[in-house]
């Protein structure tokens, strides 16, 4: 019995993405939970905040990122719980692949779920709050913020899902770590909404990029240790 060759990093990573997307297209469990939550948050804030035109631009960026952050947490929890509940995480870890390929596959899957929710929320948000969010700069901020959030969120969800209190533990672990990311995303988003000069927005964009690079690299390197018993 000759053993099969070790699969390439990219093939293993894409296999994980394919698996997550195929399963999600069937169940829509992660997407629907994230979307319903996001829509509720958007609606609640819309009725709760009587916004004047002047304050709208500064407040809506905060509401937008609260929506993405909370909905993202639900998605991360569900995505990792599916791996844990039927022992599938063990099945993944026993595959002869670089474990960082599994991590990146899960990050890409979670990121795609976030993007799917954002594609629905952003136009709706624009209508309800009467602000134009479909600006290239703002969409870049959403992209950078989502990448960083999924990157560190996937790592911490992998840790929290091992515990009995996983639903509570993930936000407790995740929110302190993503504060710099969320602050930078809110500030950069507000800058684009208020049409501030690029010199005011650039530091926040730089912080987002640096955060993404550092935390994705660290998470990639430590994932193998996190999943060790």
């Amino acid at each position, binding site marked *: 019995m000759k053993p099969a060759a070790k699969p390439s990093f990219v093939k293993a990573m894409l296999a994980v993405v394919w698996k997550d997307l195929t399963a999600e297209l069937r169940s829509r469990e992660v997407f629907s939970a994230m979307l319903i939550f996001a829509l509720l948050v958007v609606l609640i804030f819309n009725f709760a905040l009587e916004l004047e035109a002047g304050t709208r631009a500064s407040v809506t960026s905060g509401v937008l990122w609260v929506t993405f952050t909370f909905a993202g947490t639900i998605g991360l929890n569900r995505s990792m719980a599916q791996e844990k509940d*039927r022992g599938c995480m063990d099945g993944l870890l026993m595959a002869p692949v670089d474990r960082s390929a599994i991590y990146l596959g899960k990050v890409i899957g979670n990121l795609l779920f976030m993007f799917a929710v954002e594609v629905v929320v952003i136009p709706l948000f624009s209508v309800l709050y009467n602000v134009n969010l479909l600006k290239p700069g703002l969409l870049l901020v959403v992209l950078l913020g989502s990448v960083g959030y999924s990157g560190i969120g996937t790592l911490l969800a992998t840790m929290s899902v091992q515990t009995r209190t996983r639903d509570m533990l993930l936000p407790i672990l995740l929110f302190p770590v993503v504060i710099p990311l969320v602050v930078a995303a809110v500030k950069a988003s507000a800058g684009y909404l208020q049409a501030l000069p690029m010199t005011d927005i650039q530091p926040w964009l730089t912080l987002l990029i640096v955060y993404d690079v550092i935390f994705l690299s660290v998470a990639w390197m430590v994932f193998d240790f996190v999943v060790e*018993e």
Partner: protein
Amino acid sequence: MIHVRQLIKRFGPKVVLNKLAFDVSEGEFVALIGPNGAGKTTLLRILSSLAKPSLGEVSVAGFHLPGQAASVRQRLGVVSHLPLLYGDLSAAENLQFYGRMYHVSALDQRVKEVLQLVGLSHRAGDLVRTFSRGMQQRLAIGRAILHNPQVLLLDEPHTGLDQDACDMLDGVLRDVAVTGRTVVMTSHDFVRAQNLASRFDVLSRGKIVASTPANALSADGLQAFYRQSLEQA
């Protein structure tokens, strides 16, 4: 094929495996029996590279653990009491996914072969969450043998199955065993294990305390041997 010496596994202050020695030759089918908490699952988790030994020497198919874990994983199939399958994927999709993770060549053909071997060809396109426990366990065996592993580890594969499902599972396991694979199975079902295994090892308090060829004893004799081994341990 499997070589374990002076294996110690601790969880905090608790010693689960205590200087355990264990050898399995190529093509052997060994049944590991022992009371709950004896360390059977922990031993299998170490052999499958999911847990690291605290101390001691472990090698599978000539590769040391944990240092050469990736090489061991290529040669290893594992069936646990959890199916390790995705409920929202079909039987064929589950095998295709794991086949990609193991870089199985001619994957579509191999998936068909395996589904036929475990008697699930007619349910290939059905979602796993619609399967009975017995069907899931048969598919789990299919997943474990998909990449033609040299070594198969089975952790209480009969757990939660009714008699018919157990009989069907035994049939699949016999087919798997005759292909010359090395198999280690933990079980509490002595009668079923005796029909499958070539050797019994008794594990108690983290050590192998007795060993006997499976055909050397009757079913009653095996029960008596087991009790005597535990009393003497």
